[in-house]
């Protein structure tokens, strides 16, 4: 499931936060109970369109990530569907306990939107590059975790979580990244789906079959890696798993049967993220070689996104290496 023009014409690019902004307005149109809170980063997290369209349903709470979590929980207690946003480093970074007790254990219908996640935030440096947010949110009972791969998916997931009941975390990124999914993309029943198959998937012309499973805009690097590997006779199927929790175990079990190895990719700490979730699941249910691409127990730093992808081993070149090692 990809745009037909992907890799043939220059990619159209948008940040996932833009897709969220569109999705929030759409969710606001569809549901009168949708409200939004922001901790002094309204434009940056793309809540301004919602604020301008629905000023009475938007609440600027200032730099109070901890109190914002409680305020949102209180709003949910009155039957509303609050989306609360900040940079991921501050929410869910700073207010993890409030999210745990007041939102998750209290089981309130709050949607937590963490923007500017990953090293691709760039020049702001490590303090603003949330790499642990997936792990933090994945460990919480009642919480669902979503990592959209492009602006289209961010819009669709935003509209989807406006209709689910219970806490959800939506992870967004700052930089413009390629639109990979077709405009017609809708949130289906499957939480995970195949993005691309090797050209001769069922022709048996490949010596190896490897599955790359990832989430977020880094999947573009995975798609590039798959094309490279194909040239070398290694068949790679790329899977998007935008819902990290609950993990789509049924899909994984079906998928891994045909695979020699699995390589996971994400722009987060390799420890505790999607790769960990997949490795845990497969170790218990279908032991198979799993290798993870992610930040390896380090903090980020200032730099251009591409420089940082290079430094932290997140480019297609690194994914190619990881795949080759996995089947060696």
């Amino acid at each position, binding site marked *: 499931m990809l745009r037909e023009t992907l890799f043939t014409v220059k990619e159209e690019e948008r940040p996932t936060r833009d897709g969220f902004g569109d999705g929030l307005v759409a969710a606001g149109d569809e549901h009168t109970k949708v409200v939004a809170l922001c901790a002094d980063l309204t434009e940056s997290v793309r809540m301004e369109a919602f604020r301008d369209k629905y000023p009475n349903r938007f609440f600027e709470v200032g730099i109070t990530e901890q109190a914002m979590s409680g305020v949102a929980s209180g709003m949910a*207690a009155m039957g509303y569907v609050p989306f609360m946003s900040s940079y991921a480093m501050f929410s869910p970074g700073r207010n993890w306990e409030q999210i745990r007790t007041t939102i998750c254990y209290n089981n309130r219908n709050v949607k937590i939107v963490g923007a500017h996640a990953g090293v691709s935030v760039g020049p702001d440096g490590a303090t603003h590059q949330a790499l642990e947010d997936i792990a933090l949110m994945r460990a919480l009972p009642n919480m669902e975790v979503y990592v959209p791969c492009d602006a289209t998916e961010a819009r669709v997931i935003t509209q989807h979580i406006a209709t689910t009941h219970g806490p959800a975390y939506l992870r967004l990124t700052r930089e413009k990244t390629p639109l990979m999914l077709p405009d017609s993309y809708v949130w289906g029943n499957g939480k995970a789906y195949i993005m691309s198959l090797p050209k001769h998937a069922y022709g048996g012309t490949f010596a190896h079959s490897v599955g790359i499973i990832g989430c977020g805009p880094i999947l573009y690097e995975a798609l590039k890696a798959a094309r490279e590997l194909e040239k070398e006779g290694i068949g790679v199927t790329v899977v998007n798993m935008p819902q990290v929790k609950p993990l789509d175990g049924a899909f994984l079990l079906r998928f891994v049967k045909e695979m020699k190895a699995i390589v996971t990719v994400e722009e987060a700490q390799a420890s505790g993220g999607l790769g960990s979730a997949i490795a845990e699941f497969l170790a218990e249910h279908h032991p198979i070689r799993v290798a993870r691409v992610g930040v390896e127990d380090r903090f980020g730093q200032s730099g251009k996104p591409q420089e940082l992808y290079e430094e932290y081993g997140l480019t297609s070149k690194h994914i190619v290496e990881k795949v080759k090692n996995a089947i060696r």
Partner: protein
Amino acid sequence: MHSLTDVEVKALELRAEDIRESIVKMLTEAGSGHTAGPLGMADVFTALYFRVLNHNPRHPEWVQRDRVILSNGHIVPVLYATMAHAGYFSVSELKTLRRFGSRLQGHPHRESLPGIETTSGPLGCGLSQAIGMALMDKAEGHKPDRFFYCLMGDGELDEGQNWESFLLLNKYRLTKVIPIIDRNTIQIDGYTEDVLPLESLTSKFEAFNFHVIEINGHDFRDIVRAIGAAKNSLDKPTVIIAHTIPGKGVTAFEGDYRWHGKAPSDEESKKALKELRSLRGKIRYGED
């Protein structure tokens, strides 16, 4: 709300004593939990549930109800005991406090027990939730007419989240939110002014642009009058500082911070219950 008659005060005092007895019994049975705070706040909770609140114990989800948001979750024995005596559930269930499978969790869990408005325990969490509720209430034009009482401890004011919340309370001028602070001056490690000085609390809240009413938290007329005044304030929110004696009603527990976080032994409980019963109807604050 007219001021209380002597007969009404007497009835509330007797009710508060029953609640204190229940608190001592349930904590002794549980073998752990917090003693001082619940006993100290028994009069305020009695006033709320038996005089002030618009509520219906048989329909805890009634949409028109006033909300009681307990921020300092560790004093939940007083909430459980008051709710049981008010008819939310049977008084006999109080002895399941802190037991495996009990609806009466060590710290309140909303989904476990109807009538509990929020899950709390980690300190500083209540006021922001009351603000979120009141914001939506305001968005709906205050219909139906509801109030949001946030019960807070003084020790928990150490938590920064409270001060974020006070800023928000001022910003949105939510006069339907009524914070009631238990100023019992103790916390686990000692007296509040030794651990992390809070004074002058009144001038702090005045600087936040709130009305501040200081009351004797064991005087029913004082409690009811202050809440009435807070409900009638339309220009800015009112913070009620309730001066209480931690462990109130049992001489051995009163004013001693070491009783903040422990439960009475069987022997201590016997003495405490004897004292509570012998003083029946005579618990007074000060010289009276």
